[in-house]
C-alpha cells in the first residue's frame, strides 16, 4: 500500500472538537432533501399490491382490469422480472416480488404506476390474484420440527431440518472436558422477540429510466453504490448507465442495506417511460422491509469456585424470515468475544420461516447471544456469590487473548470498559424498593472495505471533499474535521459532500460501523496526496527543489538556511496561483480499508418495576464504550446513546406479534411501541479511547456495539428488581406479571 495505515500518536488540533455539522442548518430549517422529497416533471405514483397470506401458491394474476383504469401507465408482475442473474441474486429478486408463491404477510405480488395516488389505489384493487393457501410457520423452533411446512425447498439440504439453511460453529478447546473441571454449572434457555430498526423515514425513491437504457435513481439508502450494482444486475442494466444518488437518509440502522421497492420503481419507470416515485407506508415498512431475527437459545457455563470459567457453550437459532441469511454466523462469532476462555463453543443456526426477509439491524445477531451469555453470567455470579463485574473481569479478554472466533486480539477495550464500570459512581448509588441494577458487556467486530474520497481545492483555498460513504449521522462533519486536521486548515474551510455513483468510485455500504474508519482513512490519504501537490506548487512558486519543502500548520515552508529568507506559503496562497502553476489541486484515494478495530462496551442500568402493572421504568443508564478515537465526540456519544435507546426498546417493549394465521398484528407505531422521550432518562455516555493500531488516527467503529449489552443489562436489572430471572424479551408488563405469578404459584 502506498500509504501507511498504522496508528501514529498525534497531538490533534481539530480532531475531537465539537464543531457544527455541515448539513445542520439544512436539517433544522426543512431544506434537507430525503427520499420522499424529490419530484420530477411527469412523475407517476408507484404502489405495491401485497400478499394477505403468510404462505400461499399464486395460481394466477389477472391485471387486465387494472390496466384499463384511466391514468394507469404500467402494471408489473414477476413476469416482467425474469431472473437475469443466473440464480445468483434470485432470492433478492423474489423478495422484491413474489414468483410462484408468497412467503409472508406483505410479500409483494404486483405493482402499478399511475398519474395519481387515487388511480393507483383503484388499480391495485382491480388486480385479481388467485391464491391457494399453504401451511405456514413463523416460530423459529417450530420451523425446525420435522413436520414443519417447508418454506424454501430450493434451499433445503439433506441430513438436516428442511428449514435450517446454515449451521456455523466457532470456538476452541473442549467444552465437555472443561465441564469436568467446573465446580458450578449453570444452564438456561432464552428467547428474544423480533424487532424492527424503526427508522422514522420509510423507504422512498424516485426512479427514471430512459428509452436509451440509462437510468437515474434518487433513493434513501445506506449504500447507493450497492443499490446501483444490485438494481442494475436484477434489471439487466449496465452499471455505468444507472446513476444512483443517495438522498439524506432518515435512519437506516442496517435496514437500508438491501433493495426492496427500488427495482420495482425502476422497472415501472422503464415500462411506463415516465419517472416513478415510490414511498412505503409505515405498515409496508413493518411488513415488507427487513426487521431483525427473533431467536431461541440454550446456554451452559461451568466455572470453578474462584470464578474461572472452564467451559462455555451456546447454541442460538435465528429466525431469518423467508430467505436465508448469515445471522447464525455473525451471532456465533460474537458470543464469547469478551472473554478469555480455554474451552468455548458457539453454534449459530439460520432458520427460514414465513416472516419478512431479515436484514441487518445494528450489530446484527450480537444482542441475542449477548442476552443469553450475559444473563447466564449473572446467574453464575449469584451462585458463586461473586460480584458480576468481578466475575467478568476475572475472565476478561486482553491483548494476546485468542478470541473465541479465531483471531488473537491486539490492544482491546473490554477490560478498560469493565474497570470504568467498576469505578463508576453509578455502580455504588443506593437503590430503593422495587428497583434493581444490572450490567452487561458487548462486542462488535466492525468492518472496513472499499472506499473512495475526492478532495478538491478551490482557487480561494476552500476544500470540497466528496465521499462515497452515505452519511447516516454526522460523517460529513467527521470527514471535514479529518481533512482540516491533515491539511492544517480551519474546519470551516472544508465542505463535505456525499457524491453520487457517477461522480466517484465504488464505495461500500455504510454498515458494520465502517463509515468513519474507512472514509476517514481515505480522507487522510487523499489529503496527503493533495499536500504532495501543494508542495510541488510551492516549490515552483519559491523556485526551490521540492525536497526542501515541508508542510506544517497549513503552510508550505522551505527548510534549510539558504531558504531562511523565504516566507512560508499558505494553502490559500498556493491555491490562488494554481491556474498558473499547473492547474487544479486535488487529492484522491481509493482504498480497501483492512484492519477495522474490534469494539467493546459495558453498560450499567437501574430500573424500577411496578409490581402491580409489571411496567418497567429506566431510572438511570450509563454507557462505557471504546471508540478508538472519537473524531467528533458529540456524534460518538450520540451513537452510544441511540444504540442504548434501541436496546432499551428491544428489551422492554418491541416485538413483532404474529397470530395463528401467520399475519402480523402490530404493523404500526401505535402497537409496535418504540421508546418515546418520556420513557427515558438522560443516557450517560462515557467514551474511552484505546487506539486501533491499524488506523492512522486510531479510529474504531462506534455505531453498533452499544446495542449489544442493553437486553442483558436490563434483563439482569429487572431480575434483580423482581427477584425472578427474566429469560425472554421483550420484558413487557404482561410477561413480567406472568413471571411474578409463576414464581408465587
Amino acid at each position, binding site marked *: 500500500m502506498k500509504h501507511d495505515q498504522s496508528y501514529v500518536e498525534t497531538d490533534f488540533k481539530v480532531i475531537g472538537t465539537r464543531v457544527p455539522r455541515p448539513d445542520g442548518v439544512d436539517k433544522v430549517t426543512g431544506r434537507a432533501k430525503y427520499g420522499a422529497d424529490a419530484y420530477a416533471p411527469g412523475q407517476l405514483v408507484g404502489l405495491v399490491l401485497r400478499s394477505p397470506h403468510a404462505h400461499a401458491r399464486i395460481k394466477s394474476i389477472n391485471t387486465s382490469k387494472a390496466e384499463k383504469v384511466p391514468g394507469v401507465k404500467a402494471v408489473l408482475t414477476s413476469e416482467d422480472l425474469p431472473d437475469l442473474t443466473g440464480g445468483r441474486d434470485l432470492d433478492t429478486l423474489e423478495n422484491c416480488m413474489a414468483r410462484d408463491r408468497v412467503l409472508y404477510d406483505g410479500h409483494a405480488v404486483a405493482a402499478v404506476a399511475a398519474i395519481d395516488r387515487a388511480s393507483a389505489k383503484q388499480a391495485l384493487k382491480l388486480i385479481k390474484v388467485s391464491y391457494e393457501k399453504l401451511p405456514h410457520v413463523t416460530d423459529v423452533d417450530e420451523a425446525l420440527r420435522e413436520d414443519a411446512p417447508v418454506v424454501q425447498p430450493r434451499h433445503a439440504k439433506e441430513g438436516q431440518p428442511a428449514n435450517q439453511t446454515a449451521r456455523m460453529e466457532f470456538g476452541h478447546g473442549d467444552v465437555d472436558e472443561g465441564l469436568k473441571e467446573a465446580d458450578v454449572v449453570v444452564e438456561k434457555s432464552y428467547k428474544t422477540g423480533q424487532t424492527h430498526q424503526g427508522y422514522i423515514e420509510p423507504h422512498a425513491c424516485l426512479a427514471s429510466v430512459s428509452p436509451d437504457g440509462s437510468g437515474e435513481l434518487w433513493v434513501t439508502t445506506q449504500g447507493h453504490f450497492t443499490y446501483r450494482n444490485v438494481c442494475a444486475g436484477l434489471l439487466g442494466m449496465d452499471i455505468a448507465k444507472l446513476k444512483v444518488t443517495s438522498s439524506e437518509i432518515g435512519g437506516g440502522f442496517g435496514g437500508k442495506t438491501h433493495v426492496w421497492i427500488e427495482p420495482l420503481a425502476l422497472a415501472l419507470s422503464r415500462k411506463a417511460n415516465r419517472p416513478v416515485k415510490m414511498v412505503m407506508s409505515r405498515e409496508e415498512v413493518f411488513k415488507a422491509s427487513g426487521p431483525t431475527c427473533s431467536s431461541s437459545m440454550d446456554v451452559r457455563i461451568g466455572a470453578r469456585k474462584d470464578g474461572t470459567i472452564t467451559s462455555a457453550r451456546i447454541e442460538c437459532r435465528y429466525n431469518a424470515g423467508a430467505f436465508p441469511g448469515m445471522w447464525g454466523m455473525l451471532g456465533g462469532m460474537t458470543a464469547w468475544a469478551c472473554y478469555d476462555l480455554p474451552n468455548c463453543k458457539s453454534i449459530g443456526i439460520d432458520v427460514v420461516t414465513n416472516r419478512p426477509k431479515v436484514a441487518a439491524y445494528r450489530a446484527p445477531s450480537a444482542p441475542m447471544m449477548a442476552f443469553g451469555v450475559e444473563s447466564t453470567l449473572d446467574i453464575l455470579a449469584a451462585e458463586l456469590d461473586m460480584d458480576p463485574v468481578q466475575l467478568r473481569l476475572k475472565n476478561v479478554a486482553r491483548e494476546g487473548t485468542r478470541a473465541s472466533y479465531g483471531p488473537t486480539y491486539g490492544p482491546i477495550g473490554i477490560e478498560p470498559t469493565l474497570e470504568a464500570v467498576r469505578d463508576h459512581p453509578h455502580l455504588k448509588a443506593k437503590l430503593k424498593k422495587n428497583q434493581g441494577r444490572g450490567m452487561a458487556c458487548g462486542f462488535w467486530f466492525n468492518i472496513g472495505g472499499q472506499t473512495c474520497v475526492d478532495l478538491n481545492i478551490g482557487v480561494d483555498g476552500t476544500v470540497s471533499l466528496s465521499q462515497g460513504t452515505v452519511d447516516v449521522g454526522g460523517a460529513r462533519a467527521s470527514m471535514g474535521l479529518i481533512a482540516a486536521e491533515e491539511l492544517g486548515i480551519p474546519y470551516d474551510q472544508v465542505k463535505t459532500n456525499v457524491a453520487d455513483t457517477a461522480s466517484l468510485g465504488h464505495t461500500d455500504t455504510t454498515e458494520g460501523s465502517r463509515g468513519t474508519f474507512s472514509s476517514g482513512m481515505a480522507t487522510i490519504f487523499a489529503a496527503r496526496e493533495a499536500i504532495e501537490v501543494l508542495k510541488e506548487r510551492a516549490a515552483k512558486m519559491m523556485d526551490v527543489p521540492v525536497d526542501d519543502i515541508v508542510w506544517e500548520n497549513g503552510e508550505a515552508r522551505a527548510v534549510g538556511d539558504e531558504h531562511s529568507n523565504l516566507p512560508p506559503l499558505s494553502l490559500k496562497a498556493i491555491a490562488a496561483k494554481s491556474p498558473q502553476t499547473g492547474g487544479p489541486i486535488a487529492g484522491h484515494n481509493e482504498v480497501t480499508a483492512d484492519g477495522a478495530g474490534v469494539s467493546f462496551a459495558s453498560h450499567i442500568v437501574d430500573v424500577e418495576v411496578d409490581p402491580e402493572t409489571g411496567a418497567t421504568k429506566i431510572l438511570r443508564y450509563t454507557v462505557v464504550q471504546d471508540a478508538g478515537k472519537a473524531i467528533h465526540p458529540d456524534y460518538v456519544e*450520540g451513537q452510544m446513546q441511540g444504540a442504548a435507546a434501541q436496546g432499551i426498546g428491544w428489551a422492554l417493549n418491541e416485538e413483532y406479534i404474529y397470530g395463528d394465521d401467520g399475519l402480523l398484528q402490530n404493523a404500526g407505531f401505535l402497537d409496535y411501541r418504540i421508546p418515546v422521550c418520556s420513557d427515558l432518562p438522560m443516557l450517560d455516555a462515557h467514551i474511552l479511547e484505546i487506539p486501533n493500531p491499524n488506523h492512522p488516527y486510531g479510529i474504531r467503529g462506534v455505531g453498533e456495539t452499544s446495542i449489544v449489552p442493553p437486553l442483558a443489562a436490563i434483563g439482569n436489572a429487572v431480575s434483580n428488581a423482581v427477584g425472578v430471572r427474566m429469560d425472554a424479551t421483550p420484558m413487557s408488563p404482561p410477561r413480567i406479571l406472568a413471571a411474578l405469578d409463576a414464581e408465587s404459584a
Partner: protein
Amino acid sequence: MASQLVSATVNGDAVQFACPTDESLLNVLRDNLGLTGAKEGCGTGDCGACSVTLDGRLVCSCLVLGVEAEGREITTIEGMSDGQNLHPLQQQFIDNAALQCGICTPGFLVAAKALLDRNVNPTEEEIRYALAGNLCRCTGYDKIVRAVQAAAKDLQKANKKR
C-alpha cells in the same frame, strides 16, 4: 374525487390550493406547496414527523385534511427562522448535536417551539412529556432534551432584555 379550492395562510403568506377533499394537509403542504420540511413517518399520527401548527395549535398534519385549512393559519418548519436568523431552538439543536439523521428534527422543533411558546421555563419532565408525541430513533432523546433546555435559557435571557 372532486377537488376543492382552499385559501389559507402558510408561514405568513396567503396561499391558494386545490385539493381532493380526502387529501391530508401534509400531502398538500408537500406536494402542492413544495414545503417538504414536514415528513411522513407513519401517516397515523404516531410519530410527529409531520408536526405543524394550525392557528397556533400543534397538530399532526397527516391527521388534518387539506380542506380544513380554509381560512386558517399554518406554520411549518420553513417558517420558524426569522429570515436568516435561526430560532434559538434551531441553533441549539445544531450546537447540541440534537440531530443525527435529522428526519424527525422538523417535527421536534415545531413541537418544542409550541411548548416554549406557552412555557419558557419547562422542567425536564415537562419537556419529555411535551415531546412524547415525536419519535426519534437515532439519539435516545438525551441531546434533544438538552437542546430544548438550552434554547429555553436563551429565550428567557432574550425576554429579560426586552
